[in-house]
Every structure is written in C-alpha cells, then in structure tokens.
C-alpha cells in the first residue's frame, strides 16, 4: 500500500504542489519568526553584556508608579568619596525624540522610524558604553555629538552648526563636536544616539541639579557588599535603589527581548492564521482528488483492501505532503527571515548582524505544525474514502460519501455557539495576561470560523445563486454556467470561500474597530472641545510650560492651559492624573459638570473627578481625598466638582500647582487655547506661526485638523495590520485557484462537450473566472458577516470613551469585498486558461 501512496502523489503532482505551497507559506513564517527572534536575542544578549560590562553598581531612583523622581546631583560626589569606589558618574537621559537635530536642508530626521535618544556625555567608555571616533566630546552649552552612522547617513559634519529642537524650544547653531560609537560595532538598530554635556542635558530636559542614575566602578579587590552598605548610608531611604552589574545586564536583556518578542509574536500570530487558512485548502484538495478516485478506491476494496488500509494510504499521502511542505517551509523560513532583515534595513532600522539560529525547537515545531495541519485536514476525506463500497468500482459516477448535512449542521452550530460564548466571555472579563487573552480569543475565533464553515454549505447554494444573478444576466451563457457551477457543489464553494472568509473577517474587524474609535473621537471632539487651537507635542517627550505661558503673554487669548500627565495613587489605586489650569477650562473644554463648580485660579488644594471615579470612591463635592505621588509626597485635596464620563478627558484633574509641589510631571503633553473676543483667526496666524517656529516639535491644529491627523494615524496603523493579514488572503486565493483547477479537471468531459457544441475558448475562460469570482464573493461576504460579529464584540468590550457605538465603514468594506471578488477573477486566470486550452476530442473521451 505504501507504493500506492507514492504512485498517487506522483500522479497528482501539480495539484499537491498547490497544497504544498499553502503549507510552505504558513510553516515558513512560523520558522522565520523563530529564526529571527533567536538570532536577534543572541546578538542583543552580546550587546547588553558589552553595554553593562564596565558598570559594577548603579544607584537609581525607583517608584511604584509614575515617573521616578531624579536623584539630587550632590549624591554623586558623596558616593564618589566612599572608599573602594574608583569612579561614580551621574547621567541624564532625555525622553525619546526630546532633542531632534535639524539637518542642513532644514528637515528633521524622520521621527516615525527608530528613536532619537540623547544622553549626558561620560568620558569613560566602561561606564558610558560610548567612545569618541572623531572630534571632541560636547562640553559647552549648544554643543552635541552624534553616533557615527546616524551622522554619516543624515549628512551631519563634525565642526558644523545645526539647530536643535528641544523641550525648551529651538537651540540655534549648536556645534557638532564629534562622532561616537556605541559598544564595539555601533549596533544602534538605526537609532540616532546623541550626547550633550551633563549641564546642557539638565538645562534642555528641565532637570537642573538632578541626575537620572549614578554609575559606579569599584576599585579592584574591593568588597562590593561593604561598598553597597556604605552607599546605603548616603542615599535617601525612600525611592532609591542600588543594583549590581548582573541585574543591570539581565534587565537590559529583558528590555531588548521584549521588543524582539513583540516582533516575533506578531509574526507568529500571522503565521498561525495562515496555517489555519491552509487547513481549508488541504481539506478541499484531498476531498476533490479522492472524489475523482472513487472507482479506484472501490476497485481496491473489491480486490480485498480493508477500510483501514485505504485510510492509511490516504493519510500516508497527507503525511508525505506535510513532510515535504514542512521541509521546504523550514528552508523558506530562513529565507523569509533574511528577507525581513533586509526589509528592516530598507526601512532604516538596520538590525545587528545576527547569526542564523535554526534551533531544534524550531525544526520540531515546523515539522509538527506542517505535518499536523496536513494530517488533520486529510482526516475527514480519508474517512470518507475508506467508506467507499466495493461496488463503487463498477458504477459510473459514484461519489464520495459525506457526513450527513444534519450532522454538519449540528456540529457547526455547536462550534459556533461555543466560539461566540467563549469569545464573549473573553471580551467581557478578559484574563489577566495578554497571552491568555490571545489564546482565549484565538480559540473563540477558530471555533467561529469552523462553525461557520460547517454551517455555510446550507446557504452556499441560494447565496451564490443570488450573487450570480447579475452575472447570469449580464454575461450570457458563460455567466449562467458560472453561476450554476458556483452553486452546484455547495460544500466545495463553502470550504473554498471559508478560507477567504478568515482573512477578510479579520481585516473587516480591524476596519470596524478603527472606524468606531475614529467616530468616537469625532463625537468627543465635537461635543467637548471649544478651544480654537490644540497644540500637541508629537515627540511624546513633552514641551516646556513656557509655550503656554508665551501664548498667554501675548494677550490675544481668552484662555490657555497646558495639560500634564502623571501616574499617582488615588484612594489606594494607581491612576493617571492630569494637571491643568482649571479656572480657564470652561472656555476650552466642556466637561459637562455633574456637580460643583470649577475652582478659581488661586485655589490649589482641589481635585475634579469624573463621576464613575467619584462613585467608586464614594466621595462627592466637598469631601477630601488623598493623592500619593511617585516622589513619596502626598496631597489632601477637596473635591470641587465632578464631570461626565463621556468627555475627552478621562482622569482626575488637579491645578498645576499640585504637580509642582509634589515634583510630578513638569512638562505639558498638550496645550489648549481659545482666542480672545474680537481676535480673528487670521489676526492670530502670525502669532501661531511664530510659536510653531520656536517649537517645531508641536502640531498646532484646530479641533477638526486634530481629528484628521488622529484619523490618519489610526489609518496607517490599520494599514500595517491589514498588510500582514494580506498573507492569509493570498493563501486563500491560492486555494481558490487550486479548487478551480481541480474542478476544471473534474469537469473535463463537460468542458469538452461545451467546446464541441460551440462554446468558444474565451467563453470557457470567462465561465471559469466568474465561477471563481462568485466563490470569492461568497467567502468575502461570509468574512464581512463574521467581521461584523467580531467588530461588534470588540467595540462593545472597549471602554466607552474609546469606542462608543459600532461604526461600520461601509464604503471601505464594500471596496474590500469588490477587491476580493476581483482577486478571485485573477486567481482563476491559470485554471481558466487551462480549461480554454483543453483538446476537445481528448476532453470528450476523458474518463
């Protein structure tokens, strides 16, 4: 029987090749995800060894929540004076993109790419992990250095002067004093790494007299434990910790690995979706090929083969296909990993040179997944083939027996219900870890997909008839036959369409959720923003409060306030808190106060809560609440007012003075401003331009402009996700092409007859292509239906201020469905061509 297995594979090479391809793609991406992350983990491990090698101890601030409060600069000298310490250096690090150099052509380095980071310079390679390559270290005000690769690729020349965009505004004509290298090979992943002097860093980042951390090198032969004990005497008892090199190294590695894991897991997720899609394609291929071999099975049975032997022959074929596909997928995966590295390079994020690591785990997983998926898909067809009666050998037109539609319906709707129930549960009370959320929702989605696939043959015939109506009307006989062919085998149409359904349902879920989020923001902006200008810091580093003060000083504005954000502990729970000028809030945002009034500018011991927070805490206007800050300070604030949950702000708000007193966030994330009465937007424009020039890192928008920009940023995020999901759709299209090729083969005699009685080649091709389009359309509509269900679930589960009611982007989804149908047309190009080229006489006499 083994020989038979191989003969069959040989006889159906072309058809199995398509199936193999589907598995290869899925396995390939699984392998690529592991090869890439293993390689990166290894080189990042080396890199963090190198970075931390020179630091024996580090003293740094800690906090349970919020931003840790930086250390007092005087600690550095106190620690340096301790016996056994050779060197102690204080560092300041700016937030990502806090400082952006302006190139000689007047543009900044693309901020969407890898980060731009600025550190205070330490003249010690061991502690600082940087070495000078050219020029000198930055020492004075308005001096900086840059890593050599970033300088070269962006055309920065040592000795020349450039403008620097910083939180305190533009620093003009800063001198590039030198270029540096990070570690031994300057593996920056495309990041732009810059230095300024410690004093300059404190000035630019608004942290005078403080450092973010103190790096320490010990004398040789020093008892580290004794030194740590000494340091403990010097540092404050609260909010400061001492860590050793091993801890630093482990943290650094974990930090790197987190990024690697995200990339790896995202890739893995899409690979698994692709493999899931290929199950449908493999199932279809085996069903159709075995259907064409019913007489052969009958003959084998008549000659004495028992059902188990037949089943084994078929599963043997599946095993061989799975094995071959997995092995090719393994190789392809290594190639895909290399391709992705090249892609990252092209996007400007050059990954470090990584070894290609194909671990045993990767190989085992690739083979298990590839073979497993193929075997599972072939199980049902194998069982059907094994149940062929010996008499089938003698009958013309015998077909494979199938599970009864009733049973399919029962199993399908059960799976569908389980999927919906589990998914609903997962969305309503999500498990604590992200992994579990993904697993629960993934299981629910898979159950829904399988359930819909099992149930959909019931509707496949009427639906494809309905969809085919215009085709039959408009395309003549070829169109009518395309419609008949698409509905003649509902199970095949359903399974083929189901493969496409998966990709499309995920894409439309993403679109629906995106649209709902967008429209929610639109509603919020419309109902709660009265400010004429929203000034948003694009760098996320925050902008100096001077910006808001500058605006207010012009006298052209009725109200201006900056908004600062920090994490605090309120009534025992860690929560975000906003600091703003509450007295001018009324002219900028409508908070829809539910009780109380907004306090005057000189009242600083108050807090404004949104209603559900106030209810949770059981407090009302006039009650006092306790707020703890990262610095360890606490404030006792009186509730001045409560505001509706349904507004653009979603956190407790306090006057700015409260943050200043507690040493909380000192920069504004955004600023709102309203023009004074009688000042027109045109009159204010020169002023706005001036601010924009002084602070190039901010965007100054009207509410409508802000909404546009926000929507554009959501759209670009959606594009990335959808591009990855396109893989699943491509595999489904391969499945459509495969099914059509098999159907064409199966209908050879019919095609011969049609050609004999006068169907032209063009009509034949058109018939096959439109059948594919109808199958694709069926799958696409199923996908949109499931996508609506998923989208509705996700939107309902999201917080109300994030995505309110379900919003369906009808135009985009219609376009998506149209594109899917068109893709079906294109996918069937080859099978259609083959059908057109059939030799009429051979086709008629085909058995």
């Amino acid at each position: 029987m083994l020989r038979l297995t191989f003969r069959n594979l040989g006889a159906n090479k072309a058809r199995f090749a398509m199936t193999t391809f589907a598995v290869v793609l899925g396995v390939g991406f699984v392998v690529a995800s592991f090869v890439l992350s293993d390689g990166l983990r290894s080189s990042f491990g080396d890199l963090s060894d190198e970075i931390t090698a020179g630091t024996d101890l580090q003293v740094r601030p800690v906090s349970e929540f919020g931003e840790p409060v930086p250390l007092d600069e005087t600690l550095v000298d106190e620690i340096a004076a301790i016996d056994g310490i050779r060197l102690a250096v204080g560092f300041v690090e700016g937030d990502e993109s806090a400082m952006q150099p302006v190139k000689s052509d007047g543009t900044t380095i693309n901020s969407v790419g890898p980060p731009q980071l600025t550190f205070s310079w330490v003249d010690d390679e061991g502690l600082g992990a940087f070495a000078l390559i050219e020029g000198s270290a930055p020492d004075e005000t308005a001096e900086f250095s840059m890593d050599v690769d970033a300088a070269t690729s962006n055309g920065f020349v040592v000795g020349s002067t450039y403008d620097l965009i910083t939180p305190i505004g533009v620093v003009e004509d800063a001198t590039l004093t030198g270029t540096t290298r990070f570690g031994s090979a300057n593996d920056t992943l495309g990041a732009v790494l810059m230095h300024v002097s410690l004093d300059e860093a404190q000035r630019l980042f608004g942290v005078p007299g403080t450092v973010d951390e103190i790096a320490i090198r010990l004398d040789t032969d020093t008892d580290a434990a004794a030194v740590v004990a000494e340091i403990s005497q010097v540092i404050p008892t609260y909010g400061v910790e001492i860590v050793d090199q091993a801890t630093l190294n482990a943290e650094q590695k974990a930090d790197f690995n987190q990024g690697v894991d995200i990339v790896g897991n995202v890739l893995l997720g899409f690979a698994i979706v692709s493999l899931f899609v290929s199950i449908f394609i493999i199932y279809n291929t085996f069903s159709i090929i075995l259907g064409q071999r019913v007489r052969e099975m009958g003959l084998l049975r008549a000659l004495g083969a028992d059902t188990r032997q037949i089943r084994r022959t078929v599963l043997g074929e599946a095993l061989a296909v799975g094995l071959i596909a997995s092995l090719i997928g393994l190789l392809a995966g290594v190639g895909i990993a290399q391709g992705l590295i090249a892609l990252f390079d092209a996007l400007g994020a050059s990954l470090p040179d990584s070894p290609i690591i194909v671990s045993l785990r990767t190989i085992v997983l690739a083979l298990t997944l590839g073979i497993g998926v193929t075997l599972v898909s072939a199980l049902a067809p194998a069982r059907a083939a094994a149940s062929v009666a010996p008499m089938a050998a003698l009958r013309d037109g015998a077909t494979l027996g199938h599970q009864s539609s009733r049973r399919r319906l029962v199993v399908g709707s059960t799976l569908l219900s389980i999927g919906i129930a589990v998914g609903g549960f997962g969305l309503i009370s999500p498990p604590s870890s992200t992994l579990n959320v993904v697993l629960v929702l993934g299981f629910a989605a898979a159950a829904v997909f399988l359930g819909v696939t099992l149930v959909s043959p019931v509707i496949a015939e009427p639906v494809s008839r309905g969809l085919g109506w215009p085709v039959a009307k408009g395309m003549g006989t070829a169109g009518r036959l395309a419609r008949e062919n698409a509905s003649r085998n509902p199970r095949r149409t359903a399974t083929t369409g189901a493969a496409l359904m998966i990709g499309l349902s995920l894409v439309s879920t993403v679109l629906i959720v995106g649209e709902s989020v967008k429209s929610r923001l639109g509603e919020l902006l419309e109902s709660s923003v009265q400010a004429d200008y929203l000034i948003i810091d694009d760098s996320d580093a925050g902008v100096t409060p001077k910006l808001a003060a500058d605006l207010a000083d012009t006298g052209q504005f009725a109200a201006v306030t900056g908004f600062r954000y920090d994490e605090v502990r309120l009534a025992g729970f860690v929560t975000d808190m906003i600091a703003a000028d509450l007295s001018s809030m009324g002219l900028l945002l409508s908070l829809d106060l539910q009780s109380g009034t907004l306090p005057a500018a000189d009242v600083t011991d108050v807090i404004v809560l949104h209603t559900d927070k106030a209810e949770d805490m059981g407090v009302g206007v006039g009650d006092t609440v306790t707020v703890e800050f990262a610095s360890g300070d606490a404030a006792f604030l009186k509730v001045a007012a409560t505001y509706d949950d349904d507004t653009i702000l979603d956190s407790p708000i306090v006057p700015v003075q409260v943050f200043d007193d507690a040493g909380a966030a000192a920069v504004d994330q955004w600023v709102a401003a309203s023009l004074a009465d009688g000042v027109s937007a045109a009159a204010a424009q020169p002023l706005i331009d001036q601010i924009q020039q002084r602070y190039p890192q901010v965007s100054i928008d009207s509410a409508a402009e802000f909404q546009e920009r926000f929507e554009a940023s959501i759209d670009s995020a959606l594009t990335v996700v959808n591009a990855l999901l396109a893989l699943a759709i491509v595999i489904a299209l391969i499945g459509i092409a495969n099914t059509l090729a098999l159907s064409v083969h199966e209908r050879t005699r019919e095609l011969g007859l049609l050609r004999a009685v006068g169907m032209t080649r063009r009509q034949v091709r058109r018939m096959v292509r439109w059948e594919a389009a109808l199958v694709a359309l069926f799958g696409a509509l199923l996908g949109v239906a499931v996508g609506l269900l998923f989208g509705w679930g996700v939107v309902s589960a999201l917080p109300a201020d994030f995505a309110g009611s379900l919003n369906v982007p009808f135009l985009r989804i219609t376009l998506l469905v149209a594109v899917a149908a068109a893709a079906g047309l294109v996918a069937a190009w080859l099978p259609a061509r083959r059908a057109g080229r059939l030799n009429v006489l051979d086709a008629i006499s085909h058995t």
Partner: protein
Amino acid sequence: MTLLTTHLPASETIAARAIAVDKFYGKGETEVRALNGIDVEFQQGRFTAIMGPSGSGKSTLMHCLAGLDRITNGSIVIGGTDLTSLSERQLTLLRRDRIGFVFQAYNLVPTLSALENITLPMDLAGVDPDPVWLDTVISTVGLADRLEHRPGELSGGQQQRVAVARALASRPELIFADEPTGNLDSTSGAEMLDFMRRAVREMDQTIVMVTHDPVAASYSDRVVFLADGRIVDDLADPTPDKVLDAMKRLGD
C-alpha cells in the same frame, strides 16, 4: 418502395464532402494512417450511417468532418466552406452555428435543465431560437413535460432524446451522431433511431451517424463501410440482413 421515392429530395445537394482526405498520427515507423485517401459525399436531407470495425477510422472520419479534428491532407467542405482553411475559433463557431452533435454518452451539461441544454448552442451564440421550430422539435421528441428537469432526473433514453433535440434545435446544416444508441437498452435505442429517421424524413434534416450496430445502421438511407482508413463499401437502402452480409464480405 413509394416511401423511398417520396422522401428523396428533388435535387441532390451535397451537405458535406471529403476530398482525398488523409489523417496520419505519429511520424516515421510509428505512423498510423487513420484515414487513407477518403473521398465521400453526404447528401443533404439524408440519414447516412458510417460502419466499420474498431480502428477502421469511422470515428476519426466523423470528427474530421465535424471540425473537431484536423486532417493531414486533402480537404473537407461543409456547405461550401473548406474546413482546412478555418482557424480554431472559426471552427468553433462553425460547430456552434452550422453543426449539431449527439455523442454516445455525457451529452448534456448537468447544471442546465433539459430546455436550457436544448437551446445551449443558440444561447452561446446569443441568438433567440425560432419558437415555432423549437416547439416542433420538443413535441416531436416528446419531452414537453420534462423540460425543467435536470439531466440527472432523466432516464438514459430521455437524455439522448434531449441531445437529439439540441442537435436539431438550431436547424444545423448537418448533424453528427457518434454511437447515439450505444448506451441505451434496445427499446430506448429503437425509439431514438426511429426519432432520428423521422427528423430526416419529416423535418428535412441531414444526419451522419457512426455505429457498429447493424440494426441501428438499418434505420439509415445509406451505409458507408470503412476498413483500415479506406472506404470499402457503400450500401443504399440498408436492411439489417443486407448490412450483416456486407460486414461478412468485409471479414472475408
């Protein structure tokens, strides 16, 4: 014998003609001469049978006459059109518009109803069938009550009658039938042959039928015998006995 004279058309128009036709397969030593210098004419309004043993070339001759296969030498003329000069597409259109077919089995498209199968060639051409003629054909075939049925719901004999109706429906110049009764029991086969004969005599159609069954051949007006790719006999007004005699002579 009065019957014979009444159904003969007044003038003997030629519906199809093969002139010095060769059809060779393969090259050199493995060359097979399927047709070897065939000269034959088929009169319009006649029912002609082509007979011969397996491998005699009778099916090949029919395929070549019908524009389903290309010949090596010579020419084939259907109603004034030389098939050898036609492109693949022109041949397809010729089959669609001017020729009708009845095959041994698998004559109908399973997804179309009986009526849709009957009008298929005209639908492909995008022309409306002549309703009067269509009604005549359908009532003659006796399938008026089964027009909406799919082929799967019809018996073998009914399916073949639908196939003949399709061949007739577009009023082609010529109908080719390849062993049309080969898969039928004798009663259905007799009905079918009787129907074909009536189509020729009462509706003035032209049918060329390939068969190996002497009884089937006896329904025709003329039997052409082939052996080894050549025409070896030509029999007018056949009866089963005359056909059997001719076959015996061939065997000698």
